[in-house]
C-alpha cells in the first residue's frame, strides 16, 4: 500500500527519530512510504489557543497537501485528533463549507500509527525486538479523542524480548496540553510531577507513547530530575530489531 507520511511539525523539526522509525516500520511491513514535501503543520496549536483565522489557513494548506493520497499516517494521536475532530469545525466556523467538506473527507483517510497498523493493515506483531523494561503512557488525545483503546498495548505486547510494565494511573493527563504548559505552568508542572512519580515507580528504562509532544513534556521533566528513564516514541520501539540499548 502507498502510505503518505504526515510527519507532524514537531517530529519533523525536533524528534526526527519518531518519523524515521515510522518510515522504517512501514517499509519493513512491505509498504511504500511517501513524504509530501509541502506539508507543514496541522494547526492544532493555533486552534487550541484560539487563533481560528490563522488555523483556517493551516487547515487549508494541510488539506491541499494531503488530499491526493489514499492513506495518511502520522505518529501522533493529537495531530490526527485535530484533523479528524477539529479541521472541519474550524472551516465551518469561518463559513468555508467547501473546505469543511474536503477536510471531513480527508479525516476519514488519516490514521494514527497504532490504528493504521491494527485496523487497516491488520497486524499486531510487527516483528520488533526490544529487550528492555518499558512502560506505556496513553496520551489523552489517543485515548479520548481517537479512542485507540488498547491498540498500542497490543502492538507492544507482541514485541519480542520486551518487559512491559503497567503505568499506574495511566489515563491521567501528563499536564502538557500545548500552550497550557506555558499559560498554567504551575498546574502543568504539578500534573507532570505526578506522572513522573508513576513512571519512576514502574522501574522502567523506557517510557513510550504515541505522541512526541507528551513525550517531550514527560522527558523534559525526567531530564530535569536527572533520571535515566528514556522517552521513546512508540514507533521507535516498534521499529527496533537489533536489540541495542535505546
Amino acid at each position, binding site marked *: 500500500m502507498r502510505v503518505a507520511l504526515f510527519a507532524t511539525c514537531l517530529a519533523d523539526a525536533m524528534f526526527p527519530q519518531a518519523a*524515521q522509525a515510522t518510515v522504517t516500520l512501514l517499509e519493513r511491513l512491505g509498504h511504500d512510504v511517501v513524504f509530501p514535501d509541502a506539508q507543514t503543520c496541522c494547526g492544532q496549536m493555533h486552534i487550541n489557543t484560539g*487563533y481560528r483565522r490563522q488555523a483556517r489557513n493551516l487547515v487549508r494548506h494541510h488539506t491541499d497537501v494531503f488530499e491526493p493520497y489514499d492513506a495518511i499516517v502520522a505518529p501522533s494521536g493529537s495531530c490526527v485528533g485535530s484533523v479528524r475532530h477539529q479541521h472541519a469545525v474550524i472551516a465551518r466556523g469561518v463559513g468555508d463549507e467547501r473546505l469543511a467538506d474536503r477536510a471531513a473527507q480527508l479525516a476519514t483517510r488519516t490514521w494514527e500509527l497504532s490504528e493504521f497498523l491494527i485496523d487497516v493493515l491488520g497486524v499486531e506483531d510487527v516483528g520488533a525486538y526490544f529487550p528492555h523494561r518499558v512502560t506505556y503512557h496513553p496520551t489523552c488525545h489517543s485515548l479520548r479523542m481517537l479512542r485507540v483503546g488498547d491498540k498500542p498495548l497490543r502492538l507492544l505486547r507482541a514485541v519480542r524480548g520486551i518487559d512491559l510494565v503497567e503505568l499506574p494511573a495511566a489515563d491521567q493527563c501528563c499536564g502538557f496540553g500545548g500552550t497550557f504548559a506555558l499559560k498554567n505552568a504551575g498546574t502543568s508542572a504539578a500534573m507532570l*510531577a505526578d506522572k513522573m512519580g508513576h513512571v519512576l515507580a514502574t522501574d522502567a528504562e523506557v517510557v513510550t507513547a504515541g505522541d512526541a509532544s507528551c513525550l517531550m513534556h514527560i522527558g523534559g*521533566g525526567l531530564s530535569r530530575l536527572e533520571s535515566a528513564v528514556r522517552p521513546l516514541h512508540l514507533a521507535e520501539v516498534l521499529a527496533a530489531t537489533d536489540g541495542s540499548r535505546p
Partner: protein
Amino acid sequence: MTTFLGMPHAPRGVGQLRGDEPFPAAADKALADRQLRRNLGHATATIRDKRARAVAEVADWEQLRLAGEAIKAATMARLGEHLIELEAAVTARGGHVHWARDAVEANRIVTDLVRATGATEVVKVKSMATQEIGLNEALESAGITAVETDLAELIVQLGHDKPSHILVPAIHRNRTEIRDIFLRHMPGVDPDLTDDPRRLAMAARAHLRAKFLTARVAISGANFAVAETGTVTVVESEGNGRMCLTLPDTLITVMGIEKVVPAWTDLEVFLQLLPRSSTGERMNPYTSTWTGVTPGDGPQEFHLVLLDNGRTAVLADEAGRSALHCIRCSACLNVCPVYERTGGHAYGSVYPGPIGAILSPQLTGIEDNASLPYASSLCGACYDVCPVRIDIPSILVHLRGEHVDARAQRALPSPEALAMAAAAWTMAGPRRFRLGERLLRLGRLLARGGRIRRLPPPLSAWTAARDLPEPPAQTFRQWWRTRPGDGRR
C-alpha cells in the same frame, strides 16, 4: 463575537461568578497549599472510584446519556414554550411564579417575599442558583438570616469560607479542620467533639434540629421542573432538603430557566444519570417532588422564581449553549486533573472545574473570566464522564477563539498574538517552514549536554520545571532528502 444586542450577561458587583484574580495566579496559591492538595486528592480519588463502579452496573448507560443529551437539546430549542407551560401548571396548582432578569432582581423578589411573611430567619437547602446570585448576602443586608442546612454548606457558612465544589462545597476541608470549625463557630457544641465523621454529622443534626422544627420560611433551588405537570424536584441525601421542603409554611424556590424539562417521563432518564454520576450511588437517599401546593401537606405558600442572569446570553451562542445542559452532578470536577490540583476556589466562581470553565465566562461575558477557558489541558476526561455528554473540551476551544477575536478587536496585538501570527506565517508553506526549522536549529547553541535548561520568557515557564532536548542536527525532511531516490517526492 457573541455579545448579542439585548442579551445581557450576569451583572457585575452582585453574586459570585467572578474571581479577584486570573486563574493561574489563584491556582499557584492553591498548588502551594499541601494540606489542600492532600484533601482534594483523597476526596476526588474516592468519588471517582465510586462513580465508576455505580456506572459500570448500568448496561444501558450510553443510551441514557444519549437520551439525556437529546432531551436537554430539545428543551433548549423550545425553552420559552416550556417555561410558559411550567408557569401555567404551577399557577394552576396554587403556586406563584416570578421572573427575574438577573441576580439583582431575583434577590429583590426573594427578599420581598420573605419580608412579607415577617420572618427574620430562613432555612436553606443547598442551591447553586442562590449562591450564584449572592442571595444570602442580599438577605443579610435586609436583616434576614439565612441558615444553610446542607452539612458541607453549613461547614462553609460557619467557617466564613467559600464553596469549592458543586456537590460537596467543603471538599477542601478534612475531618479535623471541620471539627475545629464546629468547635469554634457552632453554638452549644459538645466541647469533646471528635473528628469522627459520624460524630460531626450528629453535631450538625443537633444544631439544626430546632431550626427545622420551628422554621417558617425555606428557600431551595431545583434540580428539575417538569413543564407539563408543574412538578419541581430536589435531589438530596441528608434529609435537610425534606425538612425545608416540608415543614415551613412558605417555600421559595429559585431556579435557573434551563432547569425545566418537558415531561414527567424525562425524569426517568435524569434520576438514573444524576445520582450515579454525582455521589456514585444507585440512588441518592431522598428525592422530593412537589406540584404547587397540596392542602394539608407541606408548605401552603409556594413561590417559584425563574432566573435568567446571563443564561439567555449562553443560549444565544450555538457553539456554547450546551453548557446549559449541565445537571450539576460534579463528575467533571472529580475527574479533572486541573481541578484535583487547584481546587475550586481558584476558579473564582461558584461553578468551578470544567463546567465552570465554560459556564462562568459565558454567563459573565468572556472578558470577565478570560483566563478560565485556558484552565484546561484539554485532556477530555470531563467529556467522557458527563452524563449529558457536554463536549466541554470543544466549548473550551470555542471560547478561547471568542476571547482571541474579542481581544483582536479591542487592543493592539499581544506578544502571544504576534508569536501565533509568526508561527502561522512560517507554517503556511514548505519554504518558509524550512527556514523556520533552520532558525530553530540555532537552539542548539543554547544546549548543554544535549539539553536546554533555561529559556527567556515566555518559554521560561517551560524551563522552570522541564528541560528541552537539543534540536537535532538534521530535521526529518533533511534526512528524507538523503535517501536514495526520495529527494523529489
